[in-house]
């Protein structure tokens, strides 16, 4: 909104010395996170997402590269002088302090006047729905409540950005889903940039404005959740986000052809890898229209999953026995279109398959 990005990383590298060997946890990450954005760093454990966040917070110093907050270089600024706050995975609530003192901690460090501390802490506890529990100790509260105290303790300082390190990891599924909605509401209410570290792809997809998918110390793709799901840039992203089918082969004139199968890849030639999501594929026993991408196969497994059926189909025209997963919505009736052992046609529109690497 001001034109400046809340957070910028410029070719940030972090190396560790582990048992005498140099290990690169982050291998050169460049990111711009906009003011007010809900930004997720998503990846498997060990991908460097937490290290990246800790460099933004100031707990780790980059080996190379720059960290900028609101256009200002803070690469060598200690964490207590950075205008960002963090919500820790373990919450890190001070056990010897009441909820009130936990939330007031940051304001006290900045020598904020007493009456302002009182007002802001009170307001913040209201936002996180903990009014009336000011005198409790953290250990007397449930996981979800502790989570909200941690959130209030960070947000009360009105940081330029809030960093959240797998904040919902310790909660059970129901509570986690409730907190996801809660987090989005709070973020809208306070309008602060959120940087969210998670390994849970569905969490990242539901909450984020943009996602950086990280793998092995690098950003594989940086885009909106829709873009990342619909148009994965690499095989890793396609595999990590949701379920994905990968088809490889040699394209001639924009068509990957094997036997009766034809996968349309307009504009591509040579060896290609194509990805297509299971829910985009139609399954049937009659030959589909010619403008569709089509493959033939035999059903090897049908799994009833409530809202949809999942089919595993072994391609008959593939030499390496590729298995394609197909989701079919249970929209009309619960009977499956095909049974195990049936020979079927799979088809999808050309725009639903993406070439992710040649």
């Amino acid at each position: 909104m001001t034109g400046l990005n809340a957070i910028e990383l410029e070719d940030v590298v972090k190396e560790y010395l582990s048992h005498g060997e140099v290990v690169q946890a982050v291998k050169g990450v460049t990111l711009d996170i906009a003011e007010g954005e809900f930004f997720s760093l998503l990846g498997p454990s060990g991908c460097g997402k937490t290290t990246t966040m800790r460099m933004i917070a100031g707990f780790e110093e980059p080996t190379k590269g720059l960290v900028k907050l609101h256009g200002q270089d803070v690469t060598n600024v200690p964490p207590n002088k950075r205008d960002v706050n963090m919500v820790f995975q373990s919450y890190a609530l001070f056990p010897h302090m009441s909820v009130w003192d936990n939330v007031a901690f940051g304001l006290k460090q900045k020598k904020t006047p007493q009456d302002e501390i009182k007002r802001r802490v009170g307001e913040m506890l209201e936002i996180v729905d903990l009014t009336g529990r000011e005198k409790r100790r953290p250990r007397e509260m449930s996981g979800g409540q502790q989570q909200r105290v941690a959130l209030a303790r960070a947000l009360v300082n009105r940081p330029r950005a809030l960093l959240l390190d797998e904040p919902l990891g310790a909660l059970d599924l129901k509570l986690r889903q409730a907190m996801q909605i809660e987090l989005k509401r709070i973020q809208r209410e306070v309008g602060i940039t959120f940087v969210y570290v998670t390994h849970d792809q569905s969490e990242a997809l539901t909450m984020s404005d943009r996602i950086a998918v990280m793998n092995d110390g690098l950003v594989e793709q940086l885009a909106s959740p829709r873009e990342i799901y619909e148009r994965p840039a690499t095989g890793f992203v396609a595999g990590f986000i949701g379920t994905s089918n990968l088809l490889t082969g040699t394209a001639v004139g924009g068509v990957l052809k094997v036997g009766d199968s034809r996968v349309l890849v307009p504009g591509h030639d040579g060896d290609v890898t194509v990805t297509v999501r299971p829910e985009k594929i139609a399954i049937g026993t009659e030959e589909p229209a010619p403008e569709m991408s089509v493959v033939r196969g035999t059903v090897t497994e049908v799994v009833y999953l409530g809202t949809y059926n999942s089919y595993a189909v072994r391609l008959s025209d593939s030499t390496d026995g590729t298995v394609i997963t197909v989701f079919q919505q249970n929209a009309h009736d619960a009977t499956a279109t095909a049974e195990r052992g049936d020979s079927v046609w799979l088809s999808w529109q050309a725009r639903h398959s993406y070439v992710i690497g040649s």
Partner: protein
Amino acid sequence: MRTRGRLGDRLLHAYTWLIIVWLSSPIAVMILFGFNDKKSKSNTTWQGFTLRWYTELFDISDLTVALRNTLVIALVSTVITVVIGTMLGIALGRHRFRGAGATNFLVFAAISTPELVMGASLLSLFVSGNVPRDANTIIIAHVLFSLSFVVVTVRARVVGLDPSLEEAARDLGATAWGTFRQVTLPSIMPGVLAGAMLSFALSIDDYVVTSFVNGSTVTFPLWIVGAVKTGIPPQVNVMGTLIFGVGVLIAIASAVASRRRA
């Protein structure tokens, strides 16, 4: 089965009481003979009840001096021990550094060294260094043998401390010192206090090491051992009773505090 169970229960009861009596009888005797209206030189046979020794508690002037020496030495050495021991405990519990292994080893070596050896070697160190033996050398010696206990209790707390607590404090704007004062120290306080009490208790009744390095300074335990031949006056029992009473009060207070915390 039931009779055997009942017999076992009874045996366990008897055994438990036996242990309690065995543990507390010396204390009971000490307290009792503080009230003994003794006429002879020795205070070993019961001769009737009196409160005389409580009113004449400080009438033996060199015993009073010895008790005061002991309390001052215990206090000073405990303060020094707690400060150094806490720093060492935090360093060993939190950080990996060159020499950490050696320091850990020394901490245990100090605990396991026989007091006789420690006293003799300290004496030869002081003599060869031409250090005059007085209350200061006693304090140095007491710091030396209690340090390890503070290190061990503090380190145990530090190891159990979530490092992200301190990071959270830094993140919320606290300086390094502010983090230590507001987060680290309160979190490890039980360990620090336990170490302090151990260190005070070790200092107050040490005889062996003190006897090597005291020079002409006399402490409470040294005075008592010196008085054994001529007979220990009942004032010693009274002083022992009072010290024990303070200890019991501290124990009760800490039990109450920890129950309130829970």
